[in-house]
């Protein structure tokens, strides 16, 4: 059997000299191409787990393995994030001074690609997201749903193996939420990508084939 694309082994994350523990020994494995929802109450540690899996933060104890190899530190984590992971956030986190198409390209500035290639790929991704006519608009000229679609295009810019979404519908109405989930599910199926979504919405979690529940920094059975 192939090794999981992501694996957490006894992950512990503590703050304030150990007085606060966000994760208390999490073990889980995610297979390549899998669609997983992580749920739990506020403060349960689900976003912290997502950050660890995406190499955005380092555990206090334990380790994260990508295709069987432990994630390193510093430059290794930067490379992992730029090449293997696409992040999607609840607050979109688009850069306000850049047009939609430039926001997508900004992710590609971290890797060596020609300016022409960056622009073409960004345009193609936005077209795929149904934003062909909106690519030269600034974030404040876009609706919330459109902003999240730009953020998804940005997450796909470097053709990652894994998409990590932290409450991707948290700032959206029900219509846009459904649309975004449809897009993410389509991407996961068509590209065979691994999709991990953190959500507190049970309806969204219920559509994922696999569901990880976290409470007080531990995975519930």
């Amino acid at each position, binding site marked *: 059997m192939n090794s999981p694309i992501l694996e957490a082994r006894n992950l512990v994350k503590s703050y304030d000299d150990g007085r606060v523990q966000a994760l208390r020994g999490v073990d889980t494995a995610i297979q390549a191409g899998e669609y997983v929802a992580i749920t739990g109450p506020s403060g349960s540690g689900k976003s912290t787990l997502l*950050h660890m899996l*995406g190499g*955005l*933060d380092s555990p206090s104890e334990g380790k994260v393995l990508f295709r069987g190899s432990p994630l390193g530190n*510093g*430059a290794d984590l*930067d*490379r992992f*994030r*730029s*090449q293997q*992971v696409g*992040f999607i*956030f609840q607050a979109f*986190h688009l*850069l*306000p*001074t*850049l*047009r939609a*198409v*430039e926001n997508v*390209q*900004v*992710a590609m*500035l*971290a*890797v060596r690609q020609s*300016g*022409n290639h*960056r*622009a*073409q790929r*960004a*345009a193609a991704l936005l077209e795929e997201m149904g934003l062909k006519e909106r*690519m*030269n608009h600034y974030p404040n000229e876009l609706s919330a749903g459109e902003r999240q679609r730009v953020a998804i295009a*940005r997450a796909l810019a*470097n053709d990652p193996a894994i998409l990590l979404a932290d409450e991707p519908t948290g700032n959206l109405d029900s219509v846009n939420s459904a649309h975004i989930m449809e897009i993410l599910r389509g991407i996961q199926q068509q590209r065979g990508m691994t999709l991990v979504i953190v959500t507190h919405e049970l309806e969204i979690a219920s559509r994922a084939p696999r569901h990880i529940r976290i409470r007080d920094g531990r995975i519930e059975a």
Partner: protein
Amino acid sequence: MAAQLSFTGFAWKNLWRRRLRTLLTLGGITMGIGAFVALVGFSRAFEHEWLRLYTNAGTDIAVVETNFLNTSLNQSLGTKIRAVSEVERAEPMIFNLIDLTPDVNALVYGWEASSYELDSLTYLSGRRFADGKPEIIVGNLLADDLKKKAGDTLSIQGVVFTVTGVFHGGTALEDGAVIMPLDQMQAISSMEGKVTAFHVKLRPPPSGESYDNYVKRAERAIEAAVPGVHADPAADRAANNGLVSLAHSVAWGTSAIALLIGILGIANTMAMSVFERTREIGVLRALGWKGSHVILLILTEATALGLVGGLFGIAAGWGGLRLLAALPQTASVASASVSPVHLVESLLIAIASGVFAGAYPAWRGAHLSPVEALRYE
């Protein structure tokens, strides 16, 4: 057509999002570089004029005591200097900066009427002065400024002098100056029997010996013949005389303060920018930007501020130099020209200022924790 985003384009957009702050920061570095270009350019032009003053007259060596401004040598030492075999002529001289009118001060030289230094002057009107008489000749720039012509009189330090001629000397230091008999200068300066320096013209060097070697040998011979004096090549005296040293010190000191203010402006702008963009830097890190990318972005922004401010500063400084060259108070010692080396130097200082000012904000931005930066409100 999708717009392309380059790294420098991204840096530019970041700077331009706070236009007023960016423009004010540019104003600060512009003033710093402008002051450097104008003041240091002015002091260097001043030095250059001194060198031309020596070379035009054919002076090889200046013999002084210790400090050119305060130097005081016995005039009788001229006999010993002239006895040195390499020396062809040794002319005693005095110079000082004197108020001629409440608005105009000028360099005033005292030379003997027979001095070779006067041979290089071209008389536009009148004639050379005579020793022992209250007579002066006036450079054409100063004559225009004072509206004096041959036959007029001019009161200096309470003594009324007759203008016997108006001359053109080829350097601003001469054209803006008054020259009078040495004895008259000694009298109004209370320096009877004293001089500030001897200008020495050497005999032609022996065949086979380089000019530089010959001058060094002559310097040693003069210093051996007259203990307690310094015999310096004309170029060294031009660079190191008291007035030039003072001009250099004031120019560098003032420029350094102005530059420091400019650098602090950039540093403040970049520190504020990093602070305001904390979450954006977190986003960039989440997208895979390395710490070194963040450093490069912030340094690019800071360097751009330095570079653009430097270009504006050069333009402003050049304008300042033109102004100094046009003002009656400074026209005699200033030149509106700026050497290419000085321009390159100014631009490099501007760029280095940007890099220096951006270094800490860049380091701070690169070391932000991505997760904490993303949570930043």
